[in-house]
């Protein structure tokens, strides 16, 4: 296949449990104990994970809550640093912010597109060129000129996805946010994502939706207990994952255009 866009080489990530040094006061009064406990009490989020994501691939990550999926995305986005191992990312990362996290409620949709765009690494000139396309795809109509605090959660998600999808993404990171759009918009997202296949956009998708993994992804990875349990064909991975969790699903019955 083509060159890997994301490579994890034996990556481990653990968090210190910062809970007990949450304040200056506690820190000063409990100094020696804090210092030792800070070194000892760590939460292992990922243990020795290795995988590659190739150019143009749609890569799904599934696993139970707290298995380390979001940590993986954080490492790809470059907001976290691993404790051991190497992470190599060779493209500009465009994270899809969950439910308009980068949106300011008092600004209009149009202004928020600009805000989100610059945070994702584009310049205002590039964003303005794409503005009409983004607005059209989001189907917000006149709402685009209203502050986003009056939007429904589905509308926010639609605008958020439109921004990321249209600002020339190279490597898209999606963390469980698409389910809120209505059924028609979901289909549109699936189509858009499928169109990325030709344009070589790489996508890493973290989700709990079996349908998303099967409909969008070329390959899936199941993270269980902070380690890679299985990697390969999405349908097989989903079946094994469901079976291991005592849920029986009929993968043939999954709606082909759902998320």
């Amino acid at each position, binding site marked *: 296949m083509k060159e890997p866009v994301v490579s994890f080489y034996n*990556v*481990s*990530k653990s*968090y*210190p449990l*910062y809970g007990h*040094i*949450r*304040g*200056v*006061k506690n*820190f000063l009064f409990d100094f020696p104990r804090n210092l030792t406990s800070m070194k000892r009490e760590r939460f292992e989020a990922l243990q020795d994970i290795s995988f590659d994501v190739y150019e143009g691939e749609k890569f799904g990550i599934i696993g139970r809550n707290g298995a380390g999926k979001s940590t993986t995305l*954080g*490492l790809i*986005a*470059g*907001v*976290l*640093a*691993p*404790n*051991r*191992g*190497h*992470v*190599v*990312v*060779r*493209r*500009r*990362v465009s*994270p899809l*912010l*969950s439910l308009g*996290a*980068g949106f*300011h409620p*008092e*600004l209009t949709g149009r*202004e928020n597109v*600009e*805000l989100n765009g*610059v*945070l*994702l*690494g*584009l*310049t*205002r*000139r590039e964003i303005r060129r794409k503005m009409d396309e983004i607005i059209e795809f989001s189907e917000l109509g006149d709402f685009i000129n209203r502050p986003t605090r009056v939007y429904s959660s589905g509308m926010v998600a639609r605008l958020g996805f439109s921004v990321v999808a249209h600002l020339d993404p*190279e490597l898209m990171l999606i*963390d469980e946010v698409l389910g809120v759009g209505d059924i028609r918009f979901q289909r549109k997202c699936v189509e858009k994502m499928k169109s990325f296949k030709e344009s070589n956009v790489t996508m890493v998708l973290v989700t709990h939706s079996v349908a998303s993994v099967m409909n969008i992804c070329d390959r899936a990875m199941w993270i269980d207990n902070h380690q890679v349990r299985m990697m390969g064909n999405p349908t097989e991975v989903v079946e094994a994952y469901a079976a291991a969790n005592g849920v029986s699903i009929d993968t043939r019955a999954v709606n082909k255009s759902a998320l």
Partner: protein
Amino acid sequence: MSVSQRLSEKKGGTVSHFGNARNWENQRDILFVLLQKELKVRYNNKLLGYLWSIANPLASAFVYFVAFKILMRINVPDYPLILISSVFPWQWMSNSIGSSPNMFVGNSSIIKKVNFPRNIVPLCMVSNHMIHFLMSVPVITLFLFMYGRAPTLTWLYGVPLLVMVHFAMAYGIALTLASLNLFFRDLERLVHIVLNFAFYLTPILYPVETIPERIRHLLVLNPFAPLIISWRELFIYGSFNWAYWLICAGYGALFLTIGTFVYRRLSWKFAEVL
């Protein structure tokens, strides 16, 4: 470039990002859009927004005037000028410092997901307060005219030079506090106590001349004192105190260094603790 460097400083694991480098135009645009956002949110109704931004310091100045001049009857000539010329610059400094602990915590949703130069957030906040201060200069001028004084040519270089050191000090402190507050969440309360001390120990409510001669030289130990005195002398008398300016510049450089150092050391941990 900076991303991969910053992250790989950490012992053990490394992260290398290629193709994620942000060019200068993008960094400028982030600052611009964030600043525009702040101003838009605040000045939705343009005139009213402007009035609000000067109403607050003006109201405090009025309260001090009533308390000290009318009720306590202190004997200082042109007392309103003394107040006005120092309350506005102090407002810039104290607003910047006071809101800085919440800067990264308040923007956690973006910081956790997107890798952008986060120091732009406090940078934008300090610039925002700077704009409010600059817009209040006409009000200060108005008061000068009311007391038979006028702006002088010294302002042409005095104002930019003081803005520069004021900005450096405010941004350096803000960057430090914003970064530290992620790890010590009660820092905010501490900051407000210290700010309260600083307010009374800095010649804002009183002129320098009322400070006893034998402790007056200690003023330079308070980083805000030379700054506020310089602003006042510039506004009222049109004189520029180079010695004080150099002291402020020293403090500014010191705070910027500390801020950058703290930010560099801690920034890769931001997403972990938010």
